[in-house]
């Protein structure tokens, strides 16, 4: 009954997946707004320059690795290799949290060097770094939560039929926040 209402060629992309793509456009605009503001502000007076501590390289490697694990977990899911899927998805979530912790380690390294992010005496260049990377961390953690939801749903008794769509959506998002970080990292290193 339900397939004949819509012609098949319209179903090439699942509406929820499509929504995710549009949402990513939206997130891009937010970060584009912030990084443009950064560029504009930088061109004006009173801009503090400093280098990013090496921890950020490690976190970059970690988030890249997590993209790999989520990719593999999706493959495992589709191949119905459930134990492998569970292992990989847990690993992905752990790497996501590790990324967030490493970012904070980066912040505190900067803080030790006397760079102040907020409050009196802070410079916009550091505040920008704090806010932009902070927002990015929030997006990564949002991905971790989504991952947990998908993961737990796979166990629920109600759900007898396995569909990979939710996992695919989370995986797309995960790769997206990964790429977003690469962009930000390059941005801060070259423009910063």
């Amino acid at each position: 009954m339900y397939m004949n209402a819509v012609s098949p060629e319209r179903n090439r992309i699942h509406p929820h997946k499509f929504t995710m793509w549009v949402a990513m456009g939206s997130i891009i605009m937010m970060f584009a707004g912030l990084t443009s503001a950064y560029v504009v502000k930088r061109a004006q007076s009173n801009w503090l320059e400093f280098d990013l501590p090496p921890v950020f390289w490690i976190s970059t490697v970690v988030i890249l690795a997590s993209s790999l694990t989520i990719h593999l977990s999706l493959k495992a899911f589709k191949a119905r290799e459930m134990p492998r899927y569970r292992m990989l998805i847990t690993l992905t979530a752990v790497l996501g949290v590790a990324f967030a912790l490493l970012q904070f380690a980066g912040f505190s390294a900067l803080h030790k060097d006397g760079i102040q992010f907020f409050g009196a005496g802070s410079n916009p260049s550091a505040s920008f770094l704090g806010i932009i990377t902070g927002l990015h961390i929030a997006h990564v953690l949002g991905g971790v939560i989504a991952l947990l939801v998908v993961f737990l749903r796979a166990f629920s008794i109600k759900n007898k039929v396995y569909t990979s769509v939710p996992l695919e959506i989370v995986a797309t998002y995960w790769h997206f926040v990964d790429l977003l970080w690469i962009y930000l990292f390059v941005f801060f290193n070259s423009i910063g």
Partner: protein
Amino acid sequence: MSNEAVLHANVGVSGHDAHHDEHHGHHHETFISKYVFSMDHKMIAKQFLITGMVWAVLGGLMSVLFRLQLGYPDSTFPWLEDILGKWAKGGRISAEAYYALVTTHGTVLVFFVLTAGLSGTFSNFLIPLQIGARDMASPLMNMLSYWFFFIASIVMLSSVFIETGPFSGGWTAYPPLSALGDASPGSKTGMDLWLTAMALFVVSQLLAGLNYIATILNMRTKGMSMTRLPLTIWALFFTAVLGVLSFPVLFSGFILLIFDRNFGTSFYLSDIFLSTTNTALPNEGGSAILYQHLFWFLGHPEVYIILLPAMGMASEVLSTNARKPIFGYMAMVGSMFAIAVLAFLVWAHHMFVTGLNPFLGSIFVLLTLLIAVPSAIKVFNWLTTLWRGNIRFTPAMMFAIGFVSLFISGGLTGIWLGNSALDIHLHDTYFVIAHFHIVMGVASMFGMFAGVYHWYPKMYGTYMNNTLAYIHFWITLIGAYLIFWPMHYEGLAGMPRRYYDYGVWESFKQFVELNRFISTVVIIVFAAQFFFLFNFFYSIFKGRKVTTTNPWGSNTLEWTTPIKPGHGNWTGEIPEVHRWAYDYGKDGQDFIPQTVPVGDNETQH
């Protein structure tokens, strides 16, 4: 996923094959699930509409109050003290209250009425019905979008009742007034609530916009190609795209503002001495102009977010009631596309006098004036659609024609303002007030009225009363021109906006009478809106019953549903579409609905 699967996705089972049944429209519905936490797009549309109407009354009332001050600056109204208390000591609105009213009026009308109330209502109502879908791509997100809007409304409303009053630094919330709690009473808790409400509002808009786009692109019924979409849908589509791409930028502006307010950063602040507390602030190196860039990057698209739905509905109503195909369908779509693209490239025309580099300014002049081209195309097409039509002057049609008139009047003054040299004189005067109230405020209101009068039979299964509607129309149209037209003269004479009392200027004494006149008309027009409100609510229960599915002889799909469609919209299968929506008066036939197959010797669209 198919339409049915989306409808059933919220019943708890996410598997595709779990549902072969055909019971859409017959879920067990409680009062709560039907009227409150409804996921039916039609009910959500009504929720947006009614919330928008409540806000329109409140926002309109605020303008009546501050117009009292502007029109009768020397009089006192003791009853004001009764309702406003300390904000109107001795029966005269205080300066602080005046600014708070102006600010809240602007915020509420722009965002809550003309964004949520307008596109929220009609995107929800018309998208599934006109593209032939059972509901939105994600009914859950749709419901959430309304509830985020609702909470935003509550937060904004609560700011009116707090000790220090609502935010009072203008609807654009420029820093430093918005960033420094000590700058004015309204900058304290009022601004915190303003920011919270607006952040929630942005979330609501994003949830809504994502859903509209996904629905339009993925859930159209068989045969409904993009070029067969009614212009309403195209307009709502571009509206959603603009919102999804520009609200996040506003959000980033707000985030920086929140940090400046609460966490001592200096994005927007530099070298400030506060006379209220007699302190020099430590903030250094910030730039208030940065906020303006971020704000207007949303702000300008926002004005088109407000206008495009009105344009789409006016097109639909004009064509239906002129019994003629819309003139230049593809040109209409193309010009909306052009408007949507240009909307992102003109924001700095709000900042010509901020010290913007004049060379950069001239680029923005060019881009700004370019918008006049698609705007003119649309006007031309509306007029040619009307030309030699068999016009039926239904209330909706009157408002649609009124919309075209207002759009022309207000668009022309936009061309004045778009010239950076003229803008040096006109910026921040009543000329700007006149410009945007006519082209955006009143015009979009007219689009909204046209939409309500036109689709009311589909919403409630009854008609609104025509006599009341005509009275409402004429008072509102004439009143709107009488209110805003004279403001052009005040602006040309240099009268600045956002002042509490013009009595101190010798040069504006000449406008005392005029201001009193304007304020008097404001009161009349505000009162006339009760013709509409009464008509609306009375007709829900007592209006003449709709007895035919297609009362306006219209081509679009919503008129193929039952008179009172249930959740799922069509009882049987969703109809297939064979033609565009504008076959009026073709081959001697009054109208040919989109569901009628193309005949053998007919030209196809």
